[in-house]
Structures are given as C-alpha cells and as structure tokens.
C-alpha cells in the first residue's frame, strides 16, 4: 500500500501509585506501567504476542468506582476512571508466593530465578515430586503456542493435560506434518526448552534474521487488523479504497469509481467467498498469509461447467480488471479468475485488453460482425467469458483478442480504417504490455511509474499513487524524479533477493508516520537489510542496496536498447493514462479539471467549450509528463533520450566493452 498509517490516539488519564499517567484507551496496563518506569515481573507476557494472563506475576491492584481488585496488568484494558497500585501489600504478597510456586517447580530455569528474585522469593516451599531440575524446562508460558498461532497462523503446538498434567505437545503426541519449521516457537521460548535441530541454509547470523523476522511477525499479528487486513482479505482489501479515491480503472480507465464496486469489494469477498486464508505455498510460514481461496465454487460456463472448483484468489488486480470491464458481480470475478488461471493467461492483460475492445465496440470502431456476434458492451460478463473460452480454444474473435491491444490497434487501423490517434489514446498499453489496474491520471509520479518502467506499465516497479496523489508527499519534479529513481531500484532489489515485498509496506510499523521519509517505510527497509546481512554476513545500507539494484536495472535498460527500444519515444504512454480523452470523460470530472486549469495552468475556464478545455488540459499534462521524464532520466544518470550514460555505467562498475558499444552512439 505504502500509505503511512496514522491512527487517532485517544489517551485516558489515570494514576499509578498516586502519580498521574496516561495511556491509549483500551491498551493494556502493562505497557503503560513499563513506560512509566514501573518494574513489573512477568513470565508469560511478550510484546509481540497477545497477552495470555497465566503467570499471574504482573498482578497489580486497581481501584475503580471505589472498589479495589487484583488484576493482571498484561491484559487489563485501560479505560474509565482508574487508580493503579503496583506495590501494595497484597500485590507484593501474591507475587512473592506465585514466584515461589515457579521456583518450587522449576528451580534452575534462569528466567524463573531472575523473576523470583525480583519478587523477593529466593527459596521455595513448593518443592515436590513434580520439581523439575532441568534449567531448560518448559515453564508453560505459552509463548510458543501463541507464536505458532499468531505468527505462522498454524496450530501445531498446544498444551494437553489438565492441572498439573499440563504439558506442551503436538496433536496426538506425534510430530505434526503441518509444522513448517518456521522456528518461531524455538526462537520465542524463554527457557530454551524447544531446540532447533537443523539450520538448513547455514545463514551467517540466524539470530539476526529471526530478530527481524519476529518483528515482522509481531507487527503482522498485532497491526494488520487495524491497517490493511491482508490476513483477512489479501490484496483485494484495496478494491473499495481505490473506488473511494477515484482510482479504480472503471470502463477502460475512463472513470475512477462505480456505484456497484461493493459487489466485488472486500466485504463481500470476505463474507461470501473466501474460505481459506492460510499461508500459501509461496512462502512457508508467512505470517501475512495474503493468499485467499474460494472453495467449492460452482462454475456456470466453459469446459468445467457445473463443477465445484477451487479458485485461487481473487487478488486486487483481478477485481480491478473486472471493474475495467464493468462486470460488477462477485460470481463473475470468481469464474473469470478461475478460467484465466486455468488457461494460463493473466487477468490483468486479458481484462485490460477486453476493456479496450469494449470501448471500441461501444464507440463503433468495431461491431458484431467483427466480434463474431459477441455483444461486448461494458458489463457483458457472459460475452467476456465466451470470449475467454474462444481465446483458449483458438477460435473466433478470441484469436484476435488474445494477441493483445497493440496488435488489435494495428489490425483495426489497417483493415477497418479505424482512427489511429483515438486508438492510441485509449488503448492502454505501453511497450506492448497492457496497463495494470490503476488510474494514473491524477498522479504524475504514477504516470512515470508506468511509463518509465523497463518492462512496461505494470505496478510492481513503482507504485506511487498513494504517496503522490493522496498524501502529496512529492510536490516537486525533483521529488517525483527521486521517487522514480529510488522505488524502482528498491523494488528491483526484492526481485534480486527473491524476497516478497508485501511485508515491506502492506503492513507498516505503528510509529511509521514519525519517520522522516514515511513512504519508504524505513523501519521495514532496515528489516530487509538485516535479512541480507544475517544470511550473507555482509552489512548493507541504502547506498549499497541501490547500487546492487542499479547494476541490474541499467543492464536491463542497455539490453532493451540493444533490442531497439528504450529511448524516450518508447517511454510514452497513451493519453488515457494522463488525462481525459473523451468529452464524456472530461465532463464526468469537469469540476476537478476546471479547477486545475485555474490553479495549475493559470487559465480561466469560464466560457470555454469542453473541447477547448480538453485541448488546454492535454497540452499541459503532456508537457508535465515530458518534464518528469527528463527529470527522472537525469536522476538515473541517463541521457535526455533515456539511454544510460557511459559515466553512469562506469560508476556502477558495469562499463563492459559490450555494453559501452551498445550505448555509445546515443551519448550526448
């Protein structure tokens, strides 16, 4: 997402031993006590885990409405009028005795000894036949059980046996095959009762990796619920958000929202469709588990008609592609998703291409005689599925559509005499690749993100909409160029390392908004650097990371140049990605465009015809795009025509003669 999350914090005042204090309403008392510098002994609390409330050492006395009672501070929510007594006789007495119980049962476990000493217990009257002298004994704190459930979303470990027979086990006392070996349990165990017997990849510093991994997992299990809800809905969580910000590519990117979006939105997917939400095969032990699945979905068309199937998804892009074609129906999303997967075609390319075909059909560029009778209007879900089946069978109109937008444009101009300029404006492809599912009209940085991406307009390389448009985090060309330099390199780096990017900014630390550059989510960038260093033993910083990526990035650009592309002309994008192509499109957002004309272009729109206003807007926006392109080239160390300068290749240590030969002619 990349949107820095700021949560409204309501603080409530209360007192700790008579001293004023305050804490977030509903937050747990223990954190507030520790923040106030009060030492509270605990054996089952862990800052990354939900409170368990079982060791009972963190008890304090609270006074509410004149009544005093003993509560565990780890899970007692701060709310209402509250006085806390942390060192009353009762607190000290019970803590000491509970600590003595621990000491009687597990006298040699270091954490137990340490905590018992804090509580004033040095010897124990609770020694019995159950006393376990093992210094690495399990003390039933439940860290591992919760880590398994909350980090890995598995339930491999749990306690069995009642009362004093309580012990840690796996189901049926046998090694559980669903255990993915994520090692969270062993890592988080305070006594060393769980040992890792295998270090398969021999990392340089496994602890460094686990420390950073645990931070990710902890944030995931505690913050996701209030942030992007990736665990519940996956990337589809942003369907409604995109609609709200006028960014959904409705009807071939003409409009940013639609009254029926809720029919394919996060709520309906979560409530009516998704049946699975476990970590997918893409990364065992992933604590985000954003992959979602619909089980037992009954297909209505195609070769598997009538059969219940398992649909892997849908993700945001699939829902976005469906909005692009205007088919706002949850069942359609599932069926489209299933057949695209089954036929091995991409929902983005297919969806964007068909949306283009639909606009061409509705504007009369093509007609039923060209489509083999298919009435391909926006929203015609049945026709879309038929077209998809044709594409797979290599029959009918499907053969043409399967070639993609660039091929269709050329054919229609050549054979049907279609208006080339119009098709170039509305055919949402660049470098031959179909656009992914965001409207970039109001975000110059995102236009650059699409247009200046080496492999074409996909969102993976630079997804800057939120930072630019919603948060206005980069108001100048310089800032946009910096983002178009930094983010493609950062995102390329994930690919180089084989690491998933979703736990970089699809969850952000609670205090991310306090960072100097929150859009970079620096806290999480540091995590990745730790992963790298922990694995390889080589420390990493931003400079080094950018250089690692830039070598590959520039190599790719040089190779593209060798293939005859990769100059400014190829970085152009259709005008639909920059502004309103049609009158209808302009008028649907006339207020916004008129306002911008006044404030940004400095032209008074009053009395001007829509056509005139469109012309002025277009000239301005195209000029803006050119400027951002030039600024970005400069930042990347490329020539004005978008070719890497030899000096840049030298700087990166990749000025190999073969490469220099390719770009030599392009140098200024």
């Amino acid at each position: 997402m990349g949107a820095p999350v700021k949560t409204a914090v309501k603080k409530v005042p209360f007192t700790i031993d008579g001293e004023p204090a305050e804490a977030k309403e509903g937050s747990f008392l223990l954190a507030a006590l520790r923040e106030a510098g009060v030492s509270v002994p605990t054996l089952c609390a862990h800052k990354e885990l939900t409170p368990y409330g079982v060791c009972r050492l963190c008890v304090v006395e609270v006074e509410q409405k004149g009544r005093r009672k003993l509560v565990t501070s780890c899970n007692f929510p701060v709310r209402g009028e509250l006085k806390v007594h942390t060192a009353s006789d009762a607190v000290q007495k019970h803590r000491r005795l509970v600590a003595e119980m621990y000491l009687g049962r597990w006298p040699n476990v270091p954490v137990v000894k340490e905590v018992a000493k804090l509580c004033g217990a040095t010897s124990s009257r609770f020694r019995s036949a159950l006393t376990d002298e093992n210094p690495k004994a399990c003390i039933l704190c439940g860290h591992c059980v919760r880590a398994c459930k909350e980090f890995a979303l598995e339930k491999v470990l749990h306690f069995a046996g009642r009362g004093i027979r309580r012990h840690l086990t796996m189901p049926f006392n046998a090694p559980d095959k669903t255990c993915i070996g994520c090692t969270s349990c062993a890592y988080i165990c305070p006594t060393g009762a769980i040992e890792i017997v295998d270090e398969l990849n021999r990392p340089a510093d496994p602890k460094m990796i686990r420390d950073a991994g645990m931070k990710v997992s902890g944030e995931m299990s505690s913050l996701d619920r209030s942030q992007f809800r990736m665990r519940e809905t996956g990337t589809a969580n942003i369907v409604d958000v995109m609609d709200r910000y006028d960014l959904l590519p409705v009807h071939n990117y003409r409009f940013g929202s639609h009254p029926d979006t809720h029919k394919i939105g996060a709520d309906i997917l979560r409530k009516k469709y998704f049946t699975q939400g476990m970590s997918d095969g893409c990364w065992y032990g992933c604590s985000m588990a954003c992959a979602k699945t619909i089980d037992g979905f009954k297909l209505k068309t195609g070769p598997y008609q009538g059969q219940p199937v398992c649909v892997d998804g849908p993700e945001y892009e699939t829902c976005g592609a469906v909005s692009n074609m205007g088919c706002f129906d949850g069942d359609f999303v599932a069926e489209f998703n299933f057949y695209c997967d089954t036929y091995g075609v991409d929902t983005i390319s297919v969806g964007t291409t068909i949306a283009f075909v639909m606009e061409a059909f509705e504007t009369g560029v093509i007609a039923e005689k060209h489509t083999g009778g298919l009435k391909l209007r926006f929203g015609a879900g049945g026709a879309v599925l038929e077209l998809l089946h044709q594409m797979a069978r290599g029959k009918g109109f499907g053969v043409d559509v399967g070639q993609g937008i660039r091929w269709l444009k050329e054919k229609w101009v050549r054979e049907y005499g279609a208006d080339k300029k119009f098709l170039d404006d509305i055919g949402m492809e660049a470098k031959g690749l179909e656009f992914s599912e965001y409207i970039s009209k109001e975000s110059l940085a995102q236009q650059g993100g699409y247009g200046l991406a080496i492999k074409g307009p996909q969102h993976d390389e630079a997804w800057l909409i939120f930072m630019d448009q919603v948060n206005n985090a980069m108001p100048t060309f310089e800032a946009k160029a910096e983002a178009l330099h930094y983010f493609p390199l950062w995102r390329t780096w994930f690919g180089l390392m084989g690491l998933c990017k979703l736990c970089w900014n699809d969850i952000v630390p609670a205090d991310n908004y306090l960072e100097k550059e929150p859009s970079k989510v620096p806290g999480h960038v540091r995590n990745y650097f730790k992963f790298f260093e922990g694995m390889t033993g080589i420390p990493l910083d931003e400079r080094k990371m950018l250089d690692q990526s830039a070598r590959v990035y520039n190599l790719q650009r040089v190779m593209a140049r060798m293939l005859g592309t990769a100059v400014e002309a190829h970085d152009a994008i259709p005008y639909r990605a920059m502004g309103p192509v049609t009158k209808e499109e302009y008028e649907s957002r006339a207020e916004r465009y008129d306002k911008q004309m006044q404030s940004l272009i400095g032209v008074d729109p009053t009395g001007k015809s829509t056509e005139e206003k469109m012309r002025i807007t277009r000239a301005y926006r195209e000029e803006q795009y050119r400027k951002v392109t030039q600024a970005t080239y400069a930042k990347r160390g490329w020539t004005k025509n978008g070719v890497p300068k030899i000096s840049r290749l030298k700087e990166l240590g990749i000025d190999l003669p073969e490469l220099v030969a390719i770009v030599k002619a392009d140098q200024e």
Partner: protein
Amino acid sequence: MDKLDAIAARVNKDFKRYQAMLMVCTGTGCVSAKGFSIRDSLKAELKARKLDDRFLVVGTGCNGFCAAGPIIVVQPEGVFYHKVKEADVAAIVSEHLVGGKVVERLLYKDPSTGQVQPKMADMGFFNKQQLVALRNKGLIDPENVEHYIARGGYQSLRRLLAEKDQAAAQEKVINDVIASGLRGRGGGGFPTGVKWEAGKKAAIKRGEPIYVVCNADEGDPGAFMDRSIIETDPHSVLEGMLIGAWAVGSRGGFVYIRKEYPLALVRLNKALADARTHGLLGQRILGSDFSFDVKIHRGAGAFVCGESSALMASMSGQAGEPRAKYVHNVEYGYRDKPTILNNVETWANIPIIFEKGADWFSSLGTKGSSGTKVFSLVGSIKNTGLVEVPMGITLREIIEDIGGGVPDGRKFKAVQTGGPSGGCIPASCLEMKVDFDSLTEAGSMMGSGGMIVMDDRTCMVDVARYFVDFLTDESCGKCTPCREGLHAMNETLQRICAGQGKAGDIEFLEEVAQTVNAASLCQLGGTAGNPVLSTLRYFRREYEEHIRQKKCPALVCKALLRYDITDKCTGCTLCAKNCPTKAITGERKKAHSLDQAKCVQCGVCKDVCNFDAVSLRSES
C-alpha cells in the same frame, strides 16, 4: 381460537375426562429404581383391566423427594405412594383405583412422629417449598409439549410476540427482568436483566449477531438441580431462552449440556423437536417476524467448562480453558460475538416472570435476592432430594423442616454449599438466611445450589482434602496459582490426613489458599481456596488435632486410627477370617490379638464383630 389456546383447551378437557391421573416419577433417581418399568406396568395393568379410559398414567420429571423413590402421586387428591415396586402396581389398581381404598403400606410415615401422611400436601418435605422454577414439577409429562401448553406454557412468549411496538416491548422485557431482581442461578448471582441489557447494547454497537446460551454443564459433586429441571420441564427453559433471545435480538441459541446427562438430553432433544413442529422454534415463530433456533452442544465432562469463558471456548471447538474476563462475554463471547449465558434455572424462571409480573417475582425471597432457589439436598440427611425454597429461608428450615434433619441419631456438623469451591458452614450458623450475600459473607457461596449435609462422623480436614483433590484434578492448569497452588494444598492436606502434618502447615495452607483465591485467572481458581479457608475458619481445632496430636476426632483419617481387640472378644474368629492383611491372630474361643504393624485400618473387623469387641480410637 388461537392454536395454543386450542391445544390447552383440548388437553385440559381430556384430563378432566379421567377419574384420576397417576403421576409416576421418571426422574433419573426413580428411573434408576425402575421408574420406567413401574410406569409401563401400570399402563399395562390398566389396559388389561380395561380401565385405561378412566385412569391416565403420566411419567413425570423428578418429584423431588428422591429418598422416597420410586414415587407415584395419584391426582387430583394428591395421594403420595413411596418406595413403590413393580409388584405393588396390581394392588394400587385393585385396592385404590377400583376399591377406592388407599394402599396403606405404600404411604409415607413421618420418621420423627411415625405418623402416616397420605397426601403430599401434609408432608414436611413439601409444604415449606415454594415452586417457581419447578412450577410444573410432577404435573406434566416432560416429553409432551401439549402438557406444558395446557399449563399455560408459551403464553408469555405469545403475548410478547403479539405486542404492536416490538422494540418497546423488547425494551420493557429487559427492564422487567431487571425490576424482578432475578440474579443468575449458576452461582455468580449477576443480575440477569443487566446482563441482557449489556449484551444487547454491545450487539447493536458492534453490528454483530448476538447469541444466547443455556449453561447446563452442572458439574458439582452432589448437585442435580439443572439436570432435574431439564428432565422435569424442558419447555420452561426453552421458553425462557426464546423470551430472552427475542428481547435482545438473537437468532441463535445453544444449550451446553453435560454428556453424563443422557435422560435430560433425550428430553431436551424431544422438546426442541416438538417446539419446531409447533412453530415455537425456527423461522417466523408463532407467525411473528421473530426467528430463532437452538442447537445442543454436549460437554465432554470437564468441570471447568461450566465456567462461562471456558464453556464458550469449548463450544467454539477450542480447548475448554477460561480467559480473562476484563472484557465480558456479553461483549466478546462465543466466537467473539456478544453472548448471553444463563444457567438452566435462570432461564426456567423467565416465563413465569412474564406470566405473573416482575413485581410478583421481586416480592418473593429477600430484597437483595428475589425469587426462589432450587437446592439439591444430599449427604447425611433424611429427606434426600430436590427442593425449591424462597430466598431468605434459614439453613435450619431447609435442613431440619424440609430435609428432616440428620438420620440415625447423629449430630449435625456442617453443611457444604456452593459446590467444590464453596465452603462448609457450621451448626452455629444454622439460623443464617440463605441468599447470595449471606452465604458469601459466611465464607461459602450460593453456587448452583448443591447442599451437602455432614454429621459428626465427618472429618473436616478430610472434607477439605476431598474437595481440594477434586479441584486439583479439574483445574485446567492454565494459570500458575490454581495449577501449582492446588497441587501444593492437596499434598499438604494428604500429608496431614496421613498423620504427617507438621508445624506451619496450617499457615502455609492459609497463605496458599488466599493467593489462589486472589490471583487465579478464573472463578474455579478464584474460589478454589474456599474449602481450606472455610474449614479453617470454623474447624481450625480439627486441623490442629490432626497435626499436633495426630488425632482425627471424627475417626475418618485412617492413618490416625487405631483398632484394638478388647476383652469382650469371644474368639469367634470372624474378624481374623475377614482381615485382609492377616493382622488378627488367635485361637478359637480365646481372645484374639491384632498386630498394629500389619493393620491397614480398613475397619472390616469392627464391621463383622458381633460382640462389640473391636474398639476404634484416634489418639496419639
């Protein structure tokens, strides 16, 4: 005429057709003494003699006077036959029904006066009781919904569903339950209406569904109130749940019932099925917009699952372990949805509040504890059974007037209330009024209503040991004080009872019990210190005698007992033959002797001796 009225009229008319109705108790107690066979042979006998059109046999739920079972009550005159055997059936038919003369030998005699008491109304066991939750006890067939309807059942629900302004009526129901002063009968004593109000508020605020749950996971040793209510009148519980569900806007309910209650389960299932066929459960109940259904969840026999949060965890398929309830179940209960949990008896009280009014209900009992309470009266008491009494009645009235006092000329010593984690109340407190607050003040608690009477042959240290042992076994082990503290208390008590008590034990027990009570996670642990604390409070001397003098004054703790053969011995050899450890030796016709080293204090010698020649002492 409305469908319910039609059923009521038909059934009542039908009843009047009969000259007499024979109410055969088929509660679990009487069933274990062949209650079903008695009911069936009575039916067969009447049929064979072609009398079945004049006399109706009804198998009812528990009559309550379990000590006198199997029981047949002949209505309408109320003749009470006790300890009936299958062989007595013919006599009841020919002498009483045909001959018009009661069968004298099956009538109940007051054990203290020896006087024959032919009618239920004359008997001390019944005439101090006040039936509210058990209003249909012995009067209906629990497996016949029409019987319940004929007694005015489901009328409260029907009236409420017919109210024009449903929202206002629902609000009023909650306010009426608050006004009635009804407090949870499961032990906590939380005001029921306040719970409903909070649950409803939470559901509306969060836009989430709300569930109602009936807690029928009665696990206290010696307690069978909830089982009996379900076996006797399941529809009263169901109607209560329906009214509650309607008032708070719930569409789904559960009954969490113990697996060990097969008969209650059969009757509950039958009640649910009948309610569905009569349009009292399911979609659009009684033609209204209200839809609601109930599912049964069978508990697997963990005592802790009677605790609300553990119960809900168990219902959700998790291990039955409690959680902290700083956030209440009414807000985050079953599957984290707002949930209203009430005990069986609480639900059974609801319909009658709306039949007779909140004012009527609040006029019963005491100011802080209105209404009645059902108790199961067991232990060393003449009239073992199920009783329902107004709150505020004294312990003495329950134990002596209703219970008939302690049998065999023994002396009353204490009564244990509140289940395993309740406490023991001594003779000096017999004038105490029985209500939520007084029992708590006395160091015990109301609990769900188990009452175990103990006489002077009971060792209070042993009692504490027994209950602590039970709780040690039933503690889920999740939190430290309950898990480790109970184990330590159990070990200490075992030691004391085994004659190995030492100085400081009492202080240690007290200290541990206080911390277990104060620092445990749930109310199982939160009251687990009570057996120790309450026996120490009232019977500290017995502990001291055990520890210092190695003496068990009640002659219970085996290790502290000494059997001796006195000079009364005639040498009959009976004791020697029966002694399992061959500790007794001696020649025929000569006094025997007992080898203390071999004796295991089993007491067989004393039991078999015909000459009172075995003495039992507990002295150091």
